[in-house]
């Protein structure tokens, strides 16, 4: 582990300045991801700017949306009454992640910015373009059981590991950001990027930009929702693949609106808009779900060890939609 400086500002602007003016500085929130990466030598910040003293922990139930502070804990959000009533899908996705101990430390901002769990990224002796551009992708011809089937490049086939983000992209959330150039909003689907030629860049955030909150707009998805996470042990494991599903059904069980996103398949949480559209107007039956799942998987491509995702993907979509539809 490298030596580093540590500051703990109480003013938002001071925190932003500290990171914006120093290319070797990084924000730290819960530290559950960053500290691990520092111990492994994967991230070597010279300065840690601890943001835990900033007043960003509130969950505000505004008309039309929930505004969740970037420092709200994963466990607090998952247990929040407003969140459970207005955005149950988000609560489900949060509770599917990590363990109770980790959720008690992890923040909403840190969760969406957690880095890939790709083994090659984590091992500084192995090639990884994300960690060290130009060294190659270790996973491309290596052990790629956990890796992407959508949106990858020949530079990087890693996946984004967050469960929460899969729900947020499905729910059309917006990220509130404050940076050296002022404040801006980023639609959640545009926060994370595909690897392309620059896998070292996970997101569209500019240096020094601080996430202050995430807004989740109210919608009709308060009942028929499900987060289906597939993993080889029952808890405390990253997803092999996951699906966030939300349905709005009319009295005849026909689909008025649908939201669908997948985790564990791409460098970003993977929204399935075409499949959503295909569901609208259809009866909420296994047959409709099967058709939507087939549409969702168009363009998927597997590597040596992850071909199972081509089948697990549609199966999990069907299972998630079936469960969502049957939840009363």
């Amino acid at each position, binding site marked *: *582990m*490298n*030596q580093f400086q540590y500051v703990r500002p109480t003013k938002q602007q001071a925190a932003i300045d500290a990171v914006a003016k120093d290319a070797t500085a990084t924000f730290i929130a819960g530290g559950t991801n960053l500290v691990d990466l520092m111990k492994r*030598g994967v991230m070597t910040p010279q300065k840690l700017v601890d943001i835990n003293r900033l007043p960003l922990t509130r969950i505000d139930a505004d008309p039309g949306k929930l505004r969740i502070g970037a420092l709200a804990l994963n466990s607090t959000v998952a247990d929040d009454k407003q969140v459970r009533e207005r955005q149950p899908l988000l609560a489900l996705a949060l509770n599917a992640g990590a363990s109770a101990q980790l959720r008690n430390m992890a923040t909403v901002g840190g969760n969406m910015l957690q880095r890939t*769990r790709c*083994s*090659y990224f*984590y*091992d500084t*002796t*192995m090639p990884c373009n994300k960690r060290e551009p130009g060294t190659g992708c*270790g996973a491309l*011809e*290596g*052990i790629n*059981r956990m890796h992407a089937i959508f949106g990858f490049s020949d530079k990087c086939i890693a996946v984004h590991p967050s469960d929460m983000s899969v729900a947020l992209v499905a729910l059309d959330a917006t990220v509130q950001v404050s940076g050296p150039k002022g404040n801006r909003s980023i639609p959640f689907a545009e926060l994370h990027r595909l690897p392309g030629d620059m896998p070292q860049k996970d997101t569209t955030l500019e240096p020094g930009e601080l996430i202050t909150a995430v807004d989740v707009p109210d919608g009709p998805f308060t009942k028929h929702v499900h987060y*289906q996470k*597939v*993993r*080889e*042990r*029952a*808890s*405390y*494991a*990253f997803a*092999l693949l996951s699906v966030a599903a939300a349905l709005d059904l009319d009295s005849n069980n026909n689909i008025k609106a649908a939201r669908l996103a997948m985790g564990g398949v791409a460098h970003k949480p993977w929204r399935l808009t075409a499949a959503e559209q295909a569901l609208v107007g259809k009866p909420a039956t296994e047959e409709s779900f099967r058709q939507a799942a087939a549409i969702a998987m168009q363009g998927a491509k597997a590597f040596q060890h992850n071909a*199972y995702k081509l*089948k*697990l993907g549609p*199966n*999990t979509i*069907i*299972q998630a939609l079936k469960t969502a539809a049957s939840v009363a």
Partner: protein
Amino acid sequence: MNEQPKPKKQIGAPLNRVDGHQKVTGAATYSAEYQLPNMAYAVLVGSTVTKGRLTGLDTKAAERAPGVLAVISHLNAPKPPGPKPEGKDPSQPQTQGNPLQVFNDDKIRFNDQPIAVVVADSWARARYAAGLVKAQYAKEKHETNLEANADKAFLPTAAKKNPKHPMNDYQRGQVDAYKTGAVKLEAEYVIPTEVHHPMELQAITAHWEAPDRLTLYDKTQGTMATRRDFAKQWGLPEENVKVIATYVGGAFGNALHSWPHEAAAVLAAKVVNRPVKLMLTREQMFTMVGYRPYTWQKLGMSATPDGKITGITHESIGQTSTYEEFTEATLAQTRMMYQSPNVTTRYRLAALDIGSPIWMRGPGEATGAFALESAMDEMAYLLNIDPLEFRLRNYTEQDPEKNKPWSTKFLKECYQLGADRIGWSKRQLKPGALRDGDWLIGYGMGVGTFGAHRGAATVSAQLLPNGTVLLQCATTDIGPGTGTAMTQIAADTLGISPDKIRFELGNSSFPKAGTQGGSSTVNSVGPATQEACLALKDKLRTLAAASNPAFTSARKEDVTMQDGYLTVGGNKDTRVSYADVLKQAGGTTVMVEAKPGGEGQKYSMYSFSVHFAEVRVHQLTGEVRVSKLVSCADAGTIVNEKTAGNQMKGGAVGGIGMALMEHALLDDRFGRYVTKDLADYHVPVHADSPAVEVAFVNQPDPHVNALGTKGIGEIAIIGVAPAIANAVFNATGKRIRELPITPDKLI
């Protein structure tokens, strides 16, 4: 004569662990927790290549880093005077040479092999400086894939040299008779590398109390074995080395061996002339302290249409390192479990550029049982016979391998107990017949066995002035509750309550005992405890005779100890106070060695178990959940129902891990593991484990020892993985022959 009420019998009772309170409150001291004055801290630097030579080592920056006391490598390490590792016989793998070799030469034999150790005045500083050491290598082509090296597999050297060695090919009846059988099965099975990962990391604190006196606070399963290894390495008399392991936070076999990091700590303490503490990281636990070896197996079986086995051939290739020939009893169960006139076994090794393996719970037998018990299920399906019925038709009433009677065998009783509890009668032979929505339900069984081993052990006993009896033995307790079981045995033998007994262990200066492993501790230390207690009574009798002649002719069994007095059979008129006895010259201490006799010549002695699993497999996602697990054991006398039950449950959970998730994945291009922590290497969490039901036959074995015990630790896991794999087949019709059974293999 007024009879005292007889004290409650302790053997069999569910006594709470005598050290439970210390363990749960943090008062128990583990090897990384000893604080010695002037202590220094060591951190290992590992090789980042898998094979080759170290051509350069730049330690300047590390040496200049704050707080650093020394950077030790092959360039400057003092060479211990003990036997030189080079030229040692690799067929004698138990720490005879190479395993203790560290910083001995510039050769790289496996990835993450320690190439240097940095010693500093704090752990953080040592760790920081370790990151500054830069190495250059001349790389050579490495081999880490077993299948790719199967053509070079060889018979272990020990077997080549000695035709009686158990690793030789075994033959009963005709060679490969299964090939001409009426109903025939041939299948290959694979177990990946699994890593022990006890909760407590490997750690050692090494202290040279004088230039020729070494004390080690070490995580080890054998204080005597570790003492012997380091005495030998440093050319010291054994009594000059003391090894303390009062508490061990789980081991599962991982501390059966002395490892390079221990040797490094001892060297470092010598160089800096201060006590040195060294603790491995979880990542290092994958690479340098053993694992269950990757093993390929092929099993051929034939049977008559009415379900009599006519031939079995079982072959295996297990992985070992290039510098030690590690062997285990993978094929043992196949030779004795079922009645078959023709049995062939062939055991081979493949030497790979990976650190040495070491026995992991249920060592080779658990690996072998996966193939054998899966094959039994496959054959039952070929014959269209219930798998339990098929096993009964091939039950052995005496050992077909050694042609001896069993000392005891109550496996049929276990079958009955288990079948009742799991509800075997609900099971449908046809796969996929039972379901609950999208969950397919299946039932499977797997059988386990392990030798009822017993070794020599010595225990001392002494009456203390406060009326407590102090017992001591060098044995360790890696978790089964050894101190608790011994306390119960002593309580019954002495006729006093357990809270008047203190059983001390985990110290090589105590009377000697073997290493805790192979389910042998209660079998060995139990009788020694019993005999030491009887000897103590006899000693007290002779001492009391000086005060009261009634003791002169009393039998030692009749000496009664209560409320600070000795009596003959409770007769108040014969009372002699402890104080009077303790006044006599010579003290009360007795020391007794108990050894196995000739029983092993007459009988074939084994513990047996059967595991029944109910699983649910999701037909869309391929997830497997074990919804019920019943483990039944014939392990002789059960000394403590609670700790024995714990052992069985722990083994069952280990078996769930083996069946469904444990898998150390290595990228052969680099020779490095890609699973490096417990987020990647999965072991079961609570949600993966149903409430395991345990039942014991609890029939004493009159031959293994006077207590009637046979051993539990290994049979708790042997047979669990195939029970689950067989249940998955029953649920889905899919036969998974390569563990672990992950969702990708089922959809």
